[in-house]
């Protein structure tokens, strides 16, 4: 089992969700996050004074999938979240030691 974490532009969330549903993903967890990468932040001007906004809003998705589904899910996110412009975000994949469905107590593949 793998945990796929993706940071995407907030306005791309619906496209990514639809693509993941189409790819057969059963559930995703979404958080509103802030951060910066190569895109950096931006400047806002209030009463003539400039403020550097370093952390820009992004959306973080977390999806646990079986090993054989990783490539398909990553491809779906990548296609749906891409605008080609700086700041599109990142996807990374990490190993998952255990997974448990709280209601039934199922573990491993059955709990994905």
């Amino acid at each position, binding site marked *: 089992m793998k945990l796929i974490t993706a940071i995407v532009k907030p306005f791309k969330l619906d496209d990514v969700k639809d693509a993941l549903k189409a790819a057969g993903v059963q559930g995703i967890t979404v958080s*509103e996050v802030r951060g910066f990468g190569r895109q950096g932040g931006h400047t*806002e*001007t*209030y*009463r*003539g*004074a400039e*403020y550097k*906004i370093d952390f820009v809003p992004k959306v973080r998705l977390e999806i646990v999938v079986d090993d054989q589904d990783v490539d398909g899910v990553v491809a779906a996110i990548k296609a749906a979240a891409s605008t080609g412009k700086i700041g599109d975000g990142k996807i990374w994949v990490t190993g998952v030691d255990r997974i448990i469905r709280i209601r039934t107590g199922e573990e491993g593949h059955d709990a994905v």
Partner: protein
Amino acid sequence: MESGNIAWVLISSALVLFMTPGLAFFYGGMDRNRNVLNMLMMNFYCVLIIPILWVAVGYSLSQTPFDNDFIGGFDSFFLKDITVAGDGMSLAVVAFLGMFAAITPALISGAVADRMKFSAWAIFVPVWSLLVYVPVFKWVYGGWLADRGSIDFAGGTAIHVNAGIAALAAVMVLGKRKSAPTPPHSMPLVMIGTGILWFGWFGFNAGSALAANGAAAQAFMNTFLAAAAAGLAWILIEWLRDGHPTNLGAASGIVSGLVAITPAAGYVSGASPIFIGLIAGVICCYAVRLKHKFGYDDALDVVGVHFVGGLVGSLLIGFFANPSFFDGAFMEGIFYGGGAKLLLEQAIANGAAIVWSFVLTYGIMVALKKTIGVRVSEESEAGGLDLAEHGETAYHGAQ
């Protein structure tokens, strides 16, 4: 006719009361999210303490006996001898003026934001009201400054210049905030506050005619036009200078126009309010940057908007005052055939208010600093005044 007058004064009183929550939102939205409740409370506190103080001694000391030049007395202590006989106007006026007394110290809260101890604010407000607001109000309305010929329709000198220069004195004693200023945490809140202020300001200015008459109608029109012109001027400057017309620029311009037309509202007519608004909008748009140059930490620009706007409006009366239009017993401005006499008297009146307010406010703040202290602890300042001073949090959850 009498019932029409009293109805208008009572409605105007309620409109002016509504300005204090409006100011609270205007300031609160500009403040940081961990201090917004402290800002609201500093404003709301003024409408808790001042009405009681006003009825007890404030009205009496600032008005009666009417022929005193510097300070009233205790003739109207707890509204003694003010009855509902006749049309009840004298009581309605006490209420109307009480609303002005309440919002004036609230104006100062924007300057001391993010670091003033609430207990110090709680004492500062009534003490400042009695030692600074009340005498200056008396001088301007029925006292020696009025006798000399200066005019102030709804409180440019008595309220905005007075509170604006007090804000400067207060932050000079209080010192700078520990952390760098932040952008407004909620611009929608600022815009709601601005709308409420503008709405309430019709009562502030047109109500100051103390009658439902033509002067009230012209003051109403002037309040409409000056705010629009100043807001327009401010966003145009921003658009050209900074690249974008901002909501905060529109809000700041509207308020600076409202401040500037306040002293002039019942003395100018025709296109004059548009010029006054445009001039105030341009000057205040640049004045809010002076704090960066001079290094005083006026958090939400009380000096740049209220002091400068009030002073500009009050001095412009010396040019735009048009007594023949109002059939009024005040001097003509320079553009209406008068000499510089009115302008000189306006300068003297504001000079007197500035000196008194600055010196007394500085003294009050130093006295508070040496006794109970005026600043919250560094830990409270860093963690936010909402939790440290009020045990409340505006926004729960992740921010």
